[in-house]
């Protein structure tokens, strides 16, 4: 089966920097994905509920506040609480993440981490490769 890829680009918590998230959202649009942007200052509950209601294939959480080890697991747990399954989604984190915390995030179920300077094509390729693997269906673009 074939489907269009839906991506949620999310800003969580007290972090007002969304230039990066907007640029990524815009380029994922141009890669042929359907991109939902949450806007700033969402709570983990709000992001999780949006992921469930929008039935997204990819959730990308943008963080520049350093709170990723706290907020990312909260989002994933609330997705479970709302009946969703983060293991069915490709989970991405973008922004300022120290390299020594990559493993910690991956252990939580994060599939890909993209720090400033990442070429946008790398994110697009990662999504196109990982979505079919995780969802077991062809990507339509």
């Amino acid at each position, binding site marked *: 089966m074939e489907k269009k890829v839906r991506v949620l680009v999310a800003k969580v918590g007290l972090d007002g920097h969304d230039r990066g998230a907007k640029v990524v959202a815009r380029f994922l649009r141009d890669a042929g994905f359907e991109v939902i942007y949450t806007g700033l200052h969402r709570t983990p509950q709000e992001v999780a509920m949006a992921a469930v*209601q*929008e039935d997204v294939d990819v959730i990308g959480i943008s963080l520049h506040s350093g709170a990723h080890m706290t907020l990312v697991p909260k989002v994933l747990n609330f997705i479970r609480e709302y009946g969703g399954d983060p293991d069915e989604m490709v989970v991405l984190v973008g922004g300022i993440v120290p390299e020594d915390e990559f493993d910690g995030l991956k252990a939580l179920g994060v599939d890909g981490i993209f720090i400033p300077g990442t070429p946008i094509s790398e994110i697009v390729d990662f999504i196109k490769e990982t979505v079919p693997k995780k969802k077991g269906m062809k990507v339509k673009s």
Partner: protein
Amino acid sequence: MDVDKIVEGILSGNKRALARAITFVENEYPEGKEILKRIFPKTGNAHIIGITGFPGVGKSTIVSKLTQEFRARGKTVGIVAIDPGSPFTGGALLGDRLRMDGLDSSKKLWIDPGVFFRSMSSRGRAGGLAAKTGDTVRLMDAFGFDMILVETVGAGQSEVDVIEVADTSIVALMPEMGDDIQINKAGILEIGDIYVVNKADLGGAEKTERWIKAMLMMDQEAVEILSKTTHAQEYEVQTGRIFDKISRAGWTPPVIKTVADRGEGIPELADAIEKHFEYLKNTGKLLETRKHRLSREMIEILVQEIKNYLKKTDKVNFQEMVEKVSKNDLDPHTAVEKMMKSILKDYKD
């Protein structure tokens, strides 16, 4: 999740099931059609409200504030918000959801158990809606929402498809969008059951309001004249959109000034929406217009079914027909008549 689980989930208030059903329907999986068949008996209870208007007039903000207002009145609300898909890449930036609650989460619409919000790409379709908007509304209706808000793509002058799904259509404008000639042009400005002049704190709102009211007075007269003329063919009156125009006799659309981001005028707008629904129910026009919409939808499904059937059957020899027509051995009308005969003989679902 399989079809049984999803249907059961939708009918028992499981949002995850509703979300997955919309995905199946939107991507035209066979399961989607099956789910739609099974939930259909549970539909017909929601008040379906369409909100349309040009890009940037504040449709999403109005939707957010209206949802807050209806929640305060004890109603549950489902929302389908459509944004355009790219004609070049097929991608879309769906930016309606982020207006929900704006930056103030105190109303908690995002996690409110009585609210469900789904963003949808038009996927290149003109008209203001996505192909599967109507079916998505039906899924939400079966789920049990009291009201379903359908927010169109930022519409152009001729994008009027919202009347194919909505019981109550709201046309949102703002000041300084053109003069009274613009207001009197055919198309989107004819379809409102309620008109909103948003951003009414900007100069010129009264002028826009006056022009809309003058346009509506002429519209009422036009409807009177139209309903007495016979040049509209019987078939057109029975199934065409002219019915929607004539059925407007007796309802004078209110014009409401709002400043949506501050919530001004929103209670008045919610009152008008409820009043219009009462009017539709009391006059019998609700069921009548829904029946007309269904007749148009069924013709559309029929045409689509024939197209789909052509793709999967080998009895029609479509390519052979095309060959013959391209060589002038056959004309297209005779070719289609022959094809119809073999389809009718051969059809099984």
